[in-house]
């Protein structure tokens, strides 16, 4: 048993952190925040050149063939930097969907383009308010085409293709479809979310040409497995963000004086930050478990992923909120960077299903693990 990253993985972390300090400083995030840009295209290009989009894609499909332990290290650093790029959509969701479900032909077509950054992929499940279920999907598919409206779709405005969840009259009531977004049957409009640094869209499909990904009527179960995999990766981003927010709060508190002393010396502030540290640490330890389960193909993945995800949602949202609070009025200004974490933590907390959704999944997985 070994519950730490290897020296090589720690070296990768150092490189990633250094790279992002140079190429994704707060000013870069702010540039996207203050503009209509849907992402930082320049940063994305550099991330692609670093090979990060190719991390777990096998070499035969143009990837680096590294493990998920390398990918989670990168995810954590991206979360820490609040990087405004479509990494989660393209790597954690679209790439994973193809690796899991793609036919040889589909893999040969898309994986090299995802690895090289020629294509950005995304994932389209939500159809508006409320928790999605196979029984309430309105998007329908008939013989090679998809019709319906998906909202919100992360990075929907810039993606080249989407993995679309649509209703099926077979099996579990859903199927997944690969849909290229640059075609006449697809129209997209930007949707504003609370995180101005991450573009989202509403996408209308009107008999859009599509290709089945995985089995017809096996889509809901496949989607749930896909989300388990993505949840571990999202959780690592959230843990990176949570630690960055804690560090920002600590650094500010140390330098801010009130009543003649550093506010970091007041127990009210110390206990607040200790609480952040505790949540972050538990979330991180659960993320280790998730990373191991994902990487080793463990049967415990569903439980490990939900545990990592619930802990990471709670840690990131809490750290982001209390970071603003620690900064007082300055934390509430546009000028300060606290808002980056505050926006991103909330976005990430609902991006692939809310805390409540994952709490429910956790107990279901717990039941299944114990019954096994």
């Amino acid at each position, binding site marked *: *048993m*070994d*519950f*730490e*990253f*290897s020296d090589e993985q720690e070296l990768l972390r150092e490189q990633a952190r250094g790279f992002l300090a140079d190429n994704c400083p707060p000013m870069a995030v702010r540039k996207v925040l203050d503009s209509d840009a849907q992402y930082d295209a320049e940063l994305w290009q550099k991330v692609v050149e670093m090979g990060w989009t190719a991390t777990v894609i096998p070499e035969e499909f143009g990837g680096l063939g590294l493990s998920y*332990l390398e990918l989670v290290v990168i995810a954590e650093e991206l979360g820490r930097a609040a990087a405004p790029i479509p990494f989660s959509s393209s790597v954690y969701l679209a790439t994973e969907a193809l690796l899991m479900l793609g036919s040889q032909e589909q893999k040969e077509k898309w994986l090299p383009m995802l690895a090289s950054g020629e294509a950005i992929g995304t994932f389209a499940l939500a159809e508006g308010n409320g928790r999605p279920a196979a029984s309430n999907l309105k998007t329908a598919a008939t013989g090679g085409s998809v019709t319906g409206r998906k909202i919100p779709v992360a990075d929907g405005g810039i993606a080249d293709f989407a993995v679309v969840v649509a209703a099926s009259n077979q099996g579990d009531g859903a199927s997944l479809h690969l849909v290229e977004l640059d075609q006449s049957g697809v129209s997209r409009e930007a949707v504003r979310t609370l995180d101005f640094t991450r573009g989202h869209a509403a996408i209308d499909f009107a008999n859009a040409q599509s290709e089945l990904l995985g089995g017809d009527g096996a889509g809901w179960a496949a989607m749930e497995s896909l989300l388990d995999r993505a949840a571990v990766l999202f959780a690592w981003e959230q843990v990176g963000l949570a630690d960055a927010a*804690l560090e920002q709060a*600590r650094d500010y*508190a*140390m330098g801010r004086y009130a009543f003649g*002393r*550093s506010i*970091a*010396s*007041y*127990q009210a*502030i*110390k*206990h607040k*930050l*200790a*609480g952040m*540290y*505790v949540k972050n*640490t*538990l*979330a991180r*330890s*659960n993320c*280790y*478990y998730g*990373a*191991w*389960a994902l*990487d*080793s193909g*463990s049967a415990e993945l569903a439980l490990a992923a*939900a*545990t990592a995800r*619930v*802990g990471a949602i*709670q840690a990131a949202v809490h750290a982001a909120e209390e970071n603003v609070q620690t900064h007082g009025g300055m934390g509430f200004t546009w000028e300060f960077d606290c808002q980056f974490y505050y926006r991103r933590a909330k976005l990430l907390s609902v991006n692939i299903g809310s*805390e*409540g959704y*994952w*709490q*429910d999944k*956790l*107990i279901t997985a*717990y039941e299944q693990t*114990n019954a096994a």
Partner: protein
Amino acid sequence: MDFKDSKDEAAFRAEAAAWLKDNVPSEEELAGMDEIAAAKLWQKRKYDAGWACIRWDKEFGGRGANAIEQVIWNQEEAKYNVPAGFFVIGQGMAAPTLMTWGQPEHHARYLPKLASGEEIWCQLFSEPAGGSDLAALRTKAERDGDDWVINGQKIWTSGAHYSDYGILVVRTDPNVPKHKGLSYFFLDMKSPGVEIKPIKQLTGGANFNEVYFTDVRIPDSQRLGEVGQGWQVALTTLMNERAAIGGGGAGVNVEMAYRIANEVMIDDKPAIADSAVRAKLANWYVQESGLRFTGYRSMTAMSRGEIPGPENSIGKLVGAPKTQEMASFCMDLLEMSGAIWDEQLSKEAGMLQLTYMGAPGGRIAGGTDEIMANIIAERVLGMPQEPRMDKGMAFTEVPTGSN
């Protein structure tokens, strides 16, 4: 990173499991024994076979195992309901302090009997005027030839009434600032002048005591560290205390709460179908699992030669309130009957009520929640201490209150 056993670890686990299977005492074997006798029997059996305090050196009664092997042993032993609980202070706190600060003759004389369970130790630190502010303690020691003469009072001493030895911090110089005037000893609890009075807790039990010292003589050879160095020695004990008291995963845990939530109904459905119940159980599972893996990570760090740090405070800070909340919530699931505390009538033989009533103790013993949070803030996050009114002041000049 690998959460599974290596080949050597699997072999170690198999060896441990096989030994446990053949040697865990049966109920019949323990019938009629009091808890201490039962715990001593099990501890001695482990010791004789080389399964006690396995990380200690062989010459002290251990087997020189590494931190990961300790995890494996704990996992395997936890599969059985074995008598335990009397050796935590001695093995987990006194022993590491002896190892760090004691002389070779101390090691040879005391460690093997700590490992075998033959001798039980207690911790004489807290005082009526020295709790969270431990260094404010007043029990004094005065040099008299080769001995020290102790006068004063300790409080909250768990197990003083059945202990053979105690570790003790006392004031040897009241004229210097409080942390600098302390010294650290250990003593025979049967020494003349030691008087032990049980304290009845709000649970109704009496596991801890007041201990009075009247002209108690301790030979200077039982001092650990230099005169005036008692605070540093005490920190060794306290750091190990937080690791030893740990997570509180036993008793009321997710497994039990899940079982109860399947047995009781909300609106004609098992409570576990209720989304609010599921959310709470999920949160506690996240905490349990997070604590477990945080502990394992710390074991990996130790096996790479790192020293356990203040981050271990997290186990108690999370585990103790969690236990209290879970016991409270499980009683809520029982609705009106949740109040019944009766081994026959209550679910889980009254464990919920017992745990709830005992839970405040867990949040206080070994450093309150608030002190734990201070430790994390100051020693992990590097935040400054609150200004101290007594800083640099001779102990005799420090203001005191009426409580």
